[in-house]
């Protein structure tokens, strides 16, 4: 689903360049539940932004769903994002003047779906994350966990190939963290590829595969030994 080969990325800082990603190789298959771990500055957010087509890379190859990503203009990137990717952010990034339902329906608006249809689909996904009764609430009327679940519903609504979650639990307490992770796990069980970035061991432990990044290189990539189910 996602294949990265010798990926490099640097940012200009004044006259110098900050080399953030130093030749990453990564292959994530369809249906995997992967977490990227690393301390701040390790390059994990940069990696997610590149994978999410929110930012470009310098050298190396990136295949998304078998398609080589290169010379992407903003229009093509927007269409690919809409079609293949769903985003979950640490700060939720809901539009504050739109209701939960309208937020969830927005990606469908950009697909050109009619209002009635997209509200129907959006409501289904809100139901899926357990927030059907909150559909008409504004983000400011929702708790942190609820906001993140709305964001997950929004990420899912286009039925993408990959869910990209950037510190999805970073702004949540441990109880809501657990419920959000359970939700992501459930989505993964249904066959969705989920790609989580985190710096919390607990969160990473909930996933199936942990990739550890340090100073722009992968230092380990291992399967999580699942505890035997009680």
């Amino acid at each position, binding site marked *: 689903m996602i294949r990265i080969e010798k990926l490099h990325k640097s940012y200009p800082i004044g006259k110098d360049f900050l080399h953030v990603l130093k030749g990453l190789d990564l292959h994530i298959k369809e249906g995997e539940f992967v977490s990227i771990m690393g301390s701040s500055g390790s390059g994990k957010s940069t990696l997610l932004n590149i994978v999410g087509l929110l930012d470009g890379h310098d050298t190396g190859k990136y295949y998304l769903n078998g398609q080589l990503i290169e010379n992407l203009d903003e*229009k093509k990137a*927007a269409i690919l994002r*809409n079609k293949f990717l769903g985003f979950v952010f640490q700060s939720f*990034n809901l*539009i504050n003047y*739109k209701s939960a339902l309208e937020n969830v329906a*927005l990606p469908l608006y950009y697909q050109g779906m009619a*209002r009635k249809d997209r509200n129907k689909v959006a409501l289904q996904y809100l139901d899926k994350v357990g927030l059907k009764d909150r559909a008409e609430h504004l983000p400011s009327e929702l708790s942190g966990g609820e906001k993140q679940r709305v964001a997950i519903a929004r990420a899912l609504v286009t039925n993408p190939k990959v869910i990209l979650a950037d510190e999805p639990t970073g702004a949540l307490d441990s109880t809501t963290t657990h419920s959000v992770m359970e939700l992501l796990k459930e989505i993964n069980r249904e066959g969705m590829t989920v790609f989580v970035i985190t710096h919390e061991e607990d969160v990473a432990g909930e996933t199936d595969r942990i990739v550890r990044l340090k100073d722009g290189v992968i230092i380990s990539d291992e399967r999580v030994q699942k505890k035997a189910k009680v």
Partner: protein
Amino acid sequence: MFDLDRWQEIFQTISKNKLRTLLSGFTIAFAILLFTLLFGVGNGLKHTFEKQFSSDAANSVYIRAGVTTKPYKGLQSGRTIQFRNDDGKFINEKFEDEIQFFSPNVERYNVQAIYEGEHNNYTVRGVYPDYQPLESAEIKDGRFLSYLDLKSKAKVVAIGRLVEKDLFGNKNALGKNISLDGISYKVVGVFSDPGGDQDERFIYTPFSTAQGMYRINDELDRFGLTYNPKLTVDQALEFSNLLTKVLQEKHNVDPRDQAAIRVQNYAEGTKSVKQFMTVLNVIILFIGIGTLVAGIIGISNIMVYIVKERTKELGIRKALGATPNSIIGMIMMESIFVTAVAGYAGLLIGVFTLKAIGKSLEKYFILNPSVETYVVVGATIILIIAGTIAGYIPAKRAASIKPIVALNDE
């Protein structure tokens, strides 16, 4: 293309973000309102001046004869110059191109007019039909004198509005006979004159009738004419100088003699009035453009602010699949919609305000303050275009920055 879904999206952004809608709307409405009011008041001033100087045609010239003050070619001073019909013919032939309307004039003062016991004294003028535009007289009722009247020496008169009022009270004078110094004349028309009460107490009768009645042979008092309005003020002055010169030659008058042939050209006065009007126009234009520029700067600032404020939202939209064009389109349509509605509102308020306060401004020399529709509509369109451009530049910028940068904008 009308896309209902897109408009719904825009209406939602507009109605859910009242402050910024209000800000940009207010700027536009206020700019147009100010523009309308200032322009209207300026036009009101202009109207006042136009009225002040429109009592006679602005391009009129009057020629009178007097007594010579200098001996010339063996003729003594103190000689009375008398205009005759052939002078009229001479002027008309000589200046065919320059003259627009022309009329010789016989004048009789203190003529007693009587109608059914009511009587009063008036000045009677014998003129050509062409005299009407010279005086800027407007026919209220009936008609002015005609060439047929002139030819047949008809005993008909066109009387001023106040003559009718004096003699007929509230009754209609048209078709009635009045007596002038004992001779009966039929009233064929009643006129009003912007020149005021004095000008509305004249009685006009055909030149031939008056000449036969009040003058010996073909003597007459003066000529009135208007020159071709295409002439510039300087050309008009040159024309009247030439006119003076040829008449002086014809009547053997010393060219330095100011009294014998007197040509009175309104162009001199018109020149300063015109200059004043030009200055006034420039001031009005300056105020108008200034207001518009202020409005344009205002709306530009607000658009930059709005786009800046929305950067994060735009980043979210892009992450969810909004293309750069859809972002630009959304911002522009919103901006155009708000400016158009607000501009129209400002325009309406301005026009109605002018209507409402117009009357009370007359004592401040502001007459009928109004703005031509095409001017305000034009101004509104200019502001809408400015708002569009002002929205386009930051929208384009916002649409082209990487979504990740936009998302991190706080």
